[in-house]
């Protein structure tokens, strides 16, 4: 019964697709004329859906993309298929190719990050590199990283800190402390997600399936570290600036109404590279590595420096440590 009605709907979509003017090209999946929630409503409402979708050319691939599952539980073939659809869609829209990876976590790896508060000078090269690497929305100036300028008299006090400074840095009497997603080992954002669109991978990276996220922003509220960002509008990146080396769970282009955040540059870190912020930092304040490897730099820091984490009492176990010289 239900299958029949879905087939009927599909036929309706295909028919309407033939009728509509295709001059606008196949609208990108990231800018669906209707989203998942309203589509369900539309299905419940019967043939209303055909009217809602009449603006979009609705091919079979689009239908499959639309009703795909959660990336977390997809088989390898399903993952390959969705990536093929997304890449084809992007090429159809822009004429350029993207390389979307589905690389899985490496074995025996748990990523950790260390931030040297004494070294950070507030230059903000990390923020710039992050925005460019991760295709963040240029209009709303979305940034995963914040650099907080703090007065040495006040110590680490976020209420008295300034993360919008525009003057020359470093300024006398101030120190600089960067925050981003801490990839907690016990992440509160993952617990609250009602649709399991965000989860922790075995290498410790907390990821989001942008296509499964319903945009409820529970995770944004649950995160004690201001680590998550929401797309209030359709994010845009000028085509020449789009980073084409992407990961499904990382920097592929997002759409309106979904969450995103730092992924430790999953598209880079799983290839052995450092995240863009670490590579860009001119002062060496940022260290990244495998905390299971006793010879790694990050382990040296954990074992030899006086490290601390933010809000440790919450039991979130962030894998992001601060230290001083």
């Amino acid at each position, binding site marked *: 019964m239900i299958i029949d009605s879905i087939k009927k709907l599909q036929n309706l979509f295909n028919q309407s697709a033939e009728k509509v003017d295709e001059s606008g090209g196949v609208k990108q999946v990231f800018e669906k004329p209707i989203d998942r929630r309203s589509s369900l409503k539309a299905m419940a409402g019967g043939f209303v859906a055909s009217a809602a979708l009449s603006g979009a050319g609705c091919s079979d691939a689009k239908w499959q993309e639309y009703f795909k599952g959660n990336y977390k539980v997809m088989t390898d073939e399903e993952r390959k298929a969705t990536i093929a659809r997304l890449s084809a869609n992007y090429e159809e829209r822009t004429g350029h190719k993207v390389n979307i990876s589905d690389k899985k976590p*490496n*074995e*025996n*790896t*748990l990523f950790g990050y*260390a931030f*040297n508060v004494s*070294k950070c*000078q*507030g*230059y*903000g*090269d990390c*923020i*710039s590199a992050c925005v460019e690497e991760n295709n963040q929305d240029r209009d*709303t*100036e979305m*940034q995963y990283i914040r*650099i907080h300028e703090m007065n040495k008299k006040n110590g680490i006090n976020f209420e008295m800190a300034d*993360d*919008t*400074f*525009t*003057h*020359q*840095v*470093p300024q006398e009497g101030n120190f600089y402390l960067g925050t981003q997603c801490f990839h907690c*080992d*016990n992440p509160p954002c993952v617990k609250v997600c009602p649709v399991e669109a965000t989860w922790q991978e075995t290498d410790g990276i907390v990821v989001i399936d942008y296509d499964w996220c319903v945009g409820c922003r529970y995770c944004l509220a649950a995160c004690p570290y201001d680590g998550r960002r929401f797309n209030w509008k359709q994010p845009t990146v000028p085509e020449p600036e789009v980073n084409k080396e992407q990961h499904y769970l990382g920097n592929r282009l997002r759409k309106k109404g979904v969450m995103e955040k730092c992924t430790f540059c999953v598209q*880079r*870190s799983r*290839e*052995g*590279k*450092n995240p863009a912020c670490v590579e860009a*930092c*001119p*002062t*060496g304040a940022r*260290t*990244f*590595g*495998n*905390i*299971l*490897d*006793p*010879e*790694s*730099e*990050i382990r*040296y*820091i954990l074992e*030899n*420096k006086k490290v601390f984490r933010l809000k440790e009492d919450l*039991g979130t*176990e962030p*894998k992001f440590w601060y*230290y001083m*010289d």
Partner: protein
Amino acid sequence: MKTWVSSILIIVVVLLAGSLLSNLIMNNHHGNHKSVFKTIESKPYEPDSIPMSSVKHLAYLDTVSVTAEGRHFAILNRENEITSFKCSECHNEPLEELKALKPKMGKKSHWNIELQHANAETMNCNTCHSENNMDELHTFTGARVSFNNSYKLCSQCHQQEYKDWAGGAHGKRVGGWAKPVVKRTCTNCHNPHSPSFPHKYPSRINTRMVEQRAKK
């Protein structure tokens, strides 16, 4: 008598139950999640089990192997980066003789180098450069050090930085986090003649956030 004993028993039981209950509540409050350090300890690391390598990100790099603080790694080749190395191509006679020629030769060759490193009582050119062999540097005790291994000179004073650099808490990696380890050496980030970092404007300013702040 009996009521006295039983009342004490009741108090003990209540106290025990209370402490158990509060334990349970505390556990729930923190979630029964184990510390990430316990995760590290519980996973013995097998070096060969990681196929991850940063070799492909290090292609075409000119490196030199070093051992510092018992750790083996590579640093970037410095000598090949210095313009007009070897220095002896110009400095083919002792410095004193060159200085005597100065009035005849006009403009100084290294006019743009101004030493802003410690003070004049502590350091001058000769602290690192050898007067008689400009192709190499020398330590306080006169041991010869190549330009590639200039970190050995820095470590004479900056011991803690040196240890942290060898370990990984100071400085920067090249290529990525995976092995093999290639690091930047001291002079890749610090100008040895003026090692402190400059003041400058932040590279990206978030105009939206600045606007929001102005409205407050």
